[in-house]
């Protein structure tokens, strides 16, 4: 039986803990080892199929594969048969037929990797599907939180920004609530999806209430084209009411950490002083990302989570 990572919605708390535990070991290789090379995926092939632009996630998966001695190849939507109008199903079956073991996929449509996983024999890793999930991002966020706080259970995590369109927030909600954290989400009401509270989070349209006593403050990227679609009046007004700056950050716990999945719009989601400040762990998140992806791919090939 093959294993996939489609989302944290589908995983148990135990499985998430297992991944985080192996990721902590992998991180020692990423940051500590003299030579970043282990043999866990030797002879295996990882294909990154990215239908959306990505720098850090794609590079992170590619390095994770290479650190484990896998063969890694990348396909992006421009310059491939995707641009010629081939269906997702046909593209995936083609890649599958070339002997791929793990297909890492990013797609603009929610559920695309779920559909694909039923059709191909390679393990599918969801690297972001539409507005649904981005499970490895949430796992790397949780790994970073554990490194700083020692645990997830009982943490208060405030996630601020465009909740409606964010797959990062959904995966974090599933993962964090399963591990016992208290999650609050904050942002403009026009970027807040209906029924989000039924996922087990508290909702605030006032950033102060959302941030108060938080152990973790996470900003989410605001896509600037959302403003053109009329979902909020201006970037200036967004920052005035929802931007995380030094004074607002004082409402969080004194030892709070600040996170962001990147890339950050400086002065929109977070002020420059917050991004570069001592509470920021944004670059550590990036390192955690490689470790988490190594753990996930290793476990997929060797029996699952």
């Amino acid at each position, binding site marked *: 039986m093959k294993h996939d990572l489609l989302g944290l919605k589908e995983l148990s708390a135990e499985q998430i803990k297992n991944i985080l535990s192996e990721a902590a070991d992998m991180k020692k290789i990423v940051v500590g080892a003299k030579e970043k090379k282990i043999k866990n995926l030797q002879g295996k092939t990882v294909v990154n199929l990215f239908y959306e632009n990505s720098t850090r996630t794609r590079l992170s998966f590619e390095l994770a594969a290479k650190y484990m001695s896998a063969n890694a190849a990348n396909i992006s939507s421009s310059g491939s048969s995707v641009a010629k109008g081939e269906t997702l199903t046909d593209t995936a079956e083609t890649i599958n037929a070339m002997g791929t073991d793990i297909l890492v996929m990013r797609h603009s*449509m*929610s559920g695309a990797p779920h559909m694909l996983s039923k059709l191909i024999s390679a393990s599918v890793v969801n690297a972001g599907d*539409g*507005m*649904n*999930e981005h499970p490895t991002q949430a796992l790397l966020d949780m790994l970073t939180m554990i490194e700083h706080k020692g645990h997830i259970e009982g943490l208060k995590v405030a996630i601020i920004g465009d909740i409606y369109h964010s797959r990062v927030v*959904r995966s974090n909600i599933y993962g964090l609530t399963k591990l016992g954290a208290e999650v609050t989400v904050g942002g403009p009401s026009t970027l807040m999806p*209906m*029924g989000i509270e039924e996922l087990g989070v508290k909702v605030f349209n006032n950033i102060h209430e959302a941030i108060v006593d938080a152990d973790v403050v996470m900003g989410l990227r605001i896509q600037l084209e959302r403003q053109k679609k009329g979902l909020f009046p201006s970037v200036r007004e967004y920052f005035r009411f929802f931007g995380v700056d030094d004074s607002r950050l004082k409402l969080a716990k004194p030892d709070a950490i600040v996170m962001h999945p990147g890339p950050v719009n400086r002065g929109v989601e977070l002020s420059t002083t917050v991004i570069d400040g001592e509470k920021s762990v944004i670059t550590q998140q990036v390192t955690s990302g490689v470790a988490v992806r190594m753990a996930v791919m290793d476990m997929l090939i060797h029996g699952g989570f």
Partner: protein
Amino acid sequence: MKILIKNGHVIDPANGIDAVTDIFIENGVISEIGEDKDLTGVEMEIIDATGKIVAPGLVDMHVHLREPGQEYKEDIETGTRAAVCGGVTSVACMPNTNPVCDNAAVVSYIKQKAAEAGYANVFPIGAVSKGQEGKILAEMGEMAFAGAVAVSDDGHPVENSGLMRRAMEYSEMFDIVVISHCEDMALGEGDMNEGAVATAMGLRGISRAAEEVMAARDIIVAEAIGGRVHIAHISTKGSVELIRQAKRRGVRVTCETCPHYFALTEEACMGFNTNAKMNPPLRTAEDVAAIKEGLRDGTIDCIVTDHAPHHADEKDCEFGLAKNGIVGLETSLGLGIKCLVNEGVLTMGGLIEKMAVNPSRILGIAKGSLSVGQTADVIIFDPRSKWTVDIKKLHSKGKNSPYDGFELYGKPEYVLVGGEIIINQGELMK
């Protein structure tokens, strides 16, 4: 050719008949109802309907037959064959074909193709506007004379309120009703019903307001000018309430719903099931309850399928890219029995009213009854007999049904269209 349907439980709400009796058919026409006829020596076919229900053939006033133009999804022959297999002996087909059915020539073409196919009766619905573009009225008078029984821009809402007003005024001269697909596009952009289920799957939600805003507008326009409108495929509690209030005020509004709006909820979409993707979208249990209450109290006049066949490639894809709609002609009677009659929402006679009598009245066609002198469109089924839906075996070209494996009741055992026995003991005869 003479046919005697013996000893069946005849349900003919149009004539107030609900009794065990016989029906005698001569030359395709119902010639007598009753048991006292002396038939000694008459050569005829006898159908024993003991223990079964004998009812007028169903009339489905909202069907997409896809021809002309999209024969890869369905054509008039396969669509009407599927209809007959579901006990639907008359369909009214929507004009969103290619070319659009917005002129008399296309209306005549559809009627001719239907006659050649020889399954169900087909009543074309013309477009409200030329090309369904929502700008200029289509030639409704010519279409009505060619056989169109209603006008609709179904698939595309008539966004311009002034055009909707003109359509109601103009169509009335030819005694055809405007069927309104209610959807405010600016509120309706999305993949499924708005709420926690959509949010949890990262799908864009369609607000109930998208449907209700336009239903309210059409009611207000009809009320203001004394016009008449039929609201298509209502799916929300709010729409039911708007129409209930309008009917109390005497507004000339009628409406329809579909089996999926009382048989399924938005949760059918979970797992990114594209066979549960439709427009209007599946709603919540609260809406389902309101739809059933609307059917029970008479607010909702008709049950239609919105039969929308698609090619497999148009559903075996990303949820966001999948086409809206499901096939329904072969499952509507079964779902009506299972979800409405067996649950006590409607009597069997009430179900036949919603599925045969009322659509015929709204369209002004001589169907939906077993009156003496009427063309013999008759169905015979056993409402206690169970059958299991196998979508691979559907007669429609489209296999896009969310009901695979559902246990339903009352598959038609005999279907007569114009006195011709097309389904005989459950077997398709042509």
